[in-house]
């Protein structure tokens, strides 16, 4: 069953184009020139209930504008949009009752109060019956193992702890759709992994439809079966995430820290991104990553190795160019 549907969805912004300098500012008092920016262009997307969809694209691609329209925060300029059978921008109470938004860099929690206090407030705002409230709260608190943090003032929580609390607050009313905007931004590897495990669990056990916007390829790769790539407001890929990485992710970034200064050989198909006495950063064709890893592990005194996925911008560029 389709839970999100858009057809030819378009959003145009009008923005003031100020001329340079003080003279330009004064001129702007009397006469202003505006330019039109198309943030989302003829966008079609259909999301089925229970899907976990990754929305990826470089900065300014139109992801946030799309999510703003889906959540009803802004109105589209043209096209059709329907979320759970509602026209989002009407912001009907019944609509808002059924979704949640979590933004990595913004908070729904009361910083002066404890998470427990905020959850109590959310219970009333979403009219959650007492038994359901307790059941859901306990479920999520157990899942995240955050019992001891519930009565701590939110402002004293770490970024990772706060994000866990944001997610609990967002899911307390059993939303049908969860919109996530960069939920792992700024988090360390352990916290990011915990958040991913939690989201996967929520999606699978509760059937919550999740639309995830992230710059971290790892988030998308681990969580989303389906990915939608956006660039210049247009959808340039919509399909299987594994296929996306298989077809368009050509390289990996490998960072090697040596125990002491060594003179290492670099295979010709690798590109050296950084080289110091005890550190080497290489861009390696994906198919050769294992071979390179083995060659270094066996032959050099290695202190640490890190392998990162290729950054999203390069992948998008490749899809866009069709290479």
């Amino acid at each position, binding site marked *: 069953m389709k839970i999100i549907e858009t057809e030819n969805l378009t959003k145009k912004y009008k923005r003031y184009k100020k001329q340079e300098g003080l003279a330009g500012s004064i001129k702007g008092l009397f006469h202003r020139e505006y330019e039109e920016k198309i943030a989302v262009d003829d966008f079609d997307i259909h999301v089925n209930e229970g899907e976990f969809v990754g929305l990826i694209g470089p900065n300014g691609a139109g992801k946030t504008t799309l999510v703003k329209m889906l959540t009803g925060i802004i109105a589209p300029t043209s096209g059709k949009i329907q979320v759970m059978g509602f026209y989002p921008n009407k912001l009907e109470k019944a609509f808002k009752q059924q979704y949640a938004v979590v933004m990595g860099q913004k908070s729904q929690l009361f910083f*002066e109060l404890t998470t427990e206090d905020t959850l109590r407030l959310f219970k009333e705002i979403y009219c959650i019956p007492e038994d359901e409230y307790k059941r859901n709260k306990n479920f999520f608190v157990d899942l995240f193992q955050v019992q001891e943090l519930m009565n701590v003032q939110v402002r004293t929580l770490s970024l990772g702890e706060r994000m866990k609390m944001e997610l609990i607050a967002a899911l307390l009313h059993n939303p049908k759709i969860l919109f996530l*905007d960069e939920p792992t931004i700024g988090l360390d590897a352990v916290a990011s992994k915990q958040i991913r495990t939690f989201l996967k669990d929520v999606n699978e056990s509760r059937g919550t439809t999740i639309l995830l916007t992230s710059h971290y390829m790892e988030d998308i790769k681990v969580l989303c079966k389906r990915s939608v790539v956006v660039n210049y407001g247009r959808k340039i890929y919509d399909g299987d995430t594994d296929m996306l990485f298989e077809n368009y992710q050509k390289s990996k970034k490998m960072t090697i820290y040596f125990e002491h200064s060594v003179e290492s050989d670099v295979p010709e198909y690798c590109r050296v991104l950084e080289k110091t006495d005890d550190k080497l950063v290489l861009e390696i064709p994906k198919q050769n990553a294992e071979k390179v890893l083995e060659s270094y592990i066996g032959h050099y005194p290695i202190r640490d190795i890190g392998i990162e996925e290729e950054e999203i911008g390069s992948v998008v560029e490749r899809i866009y160019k069709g290479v």
Partner: protein
Amino acid sequence: MKKYLEIAKAYMKAQLIWRSDTFVDVILAVSKILFAWILWSILFEGKKQIAGLGFQTMISYYIISSYLFQLEKSAEISQQMTGMLRNGTFSKYMVIPVQTQGYFVAMEAGKIAFSAGIGFLATFLWFYLFRIPFVHTANIKILLCGIIMVVLGLLFMALLNYFLGILTLKFEEINIFLMIKDNLSAFVTGAVIPLALLPEWMIAGMRFLPFYYVTYLPSMLFIGKCEEEAITGLIVLSVWCIAFLVLNLVTYEHDRIKYDGAGI
């Protein structure tokens, strides 16, 4: 309704977190009474009445009006809203199932309830401990009118500031509107020019504006003065409150659709 009570409660709890602020609030409430006592004692030296009020009545008026004045903090609604709309954090109120107008009024009520409670306790204790004669009306109906007027007055100010806040959806820069409101309020309450210097028709006209009834008239009613204006005051304030409730709903619904910068 319960959700708005819980919102008010949350903001009240948030105020109680800061112990030093709570302590300063109590100190300020007490020192205000002490200051009034000293000031008016000096002014009343050798006089029985000033502006038709005796010493005890004047002290009572001063304390009540400054107490009510201290409660009226709704300007922060418009400042908070304009700040959030500009930096893109206002959307967090748009995506939850509450009316934003109700949310901000409840938020203000929670903050006021805290200040009102602290101020009232400190004032009451001070009056009681130092046996200061408190002049007040003995007419229960007038007392009740005064209390309702205070509630309506604070509600009106919250609604007015919410309205000024949502003007950010259209104008982005609302400082000019805030300045007009502050000056108008100061003018009508006699803070700019003594009302006695104004022509009678102008003073009569001001009676139709709500500001006169926010702190001045309730203070007078509590000390047993201007009782004949009580009903008029309630009617005028009620009409203004209803008008702004409707105006806010219409303006918000109209302007938010055209606004693109609500952030996420």
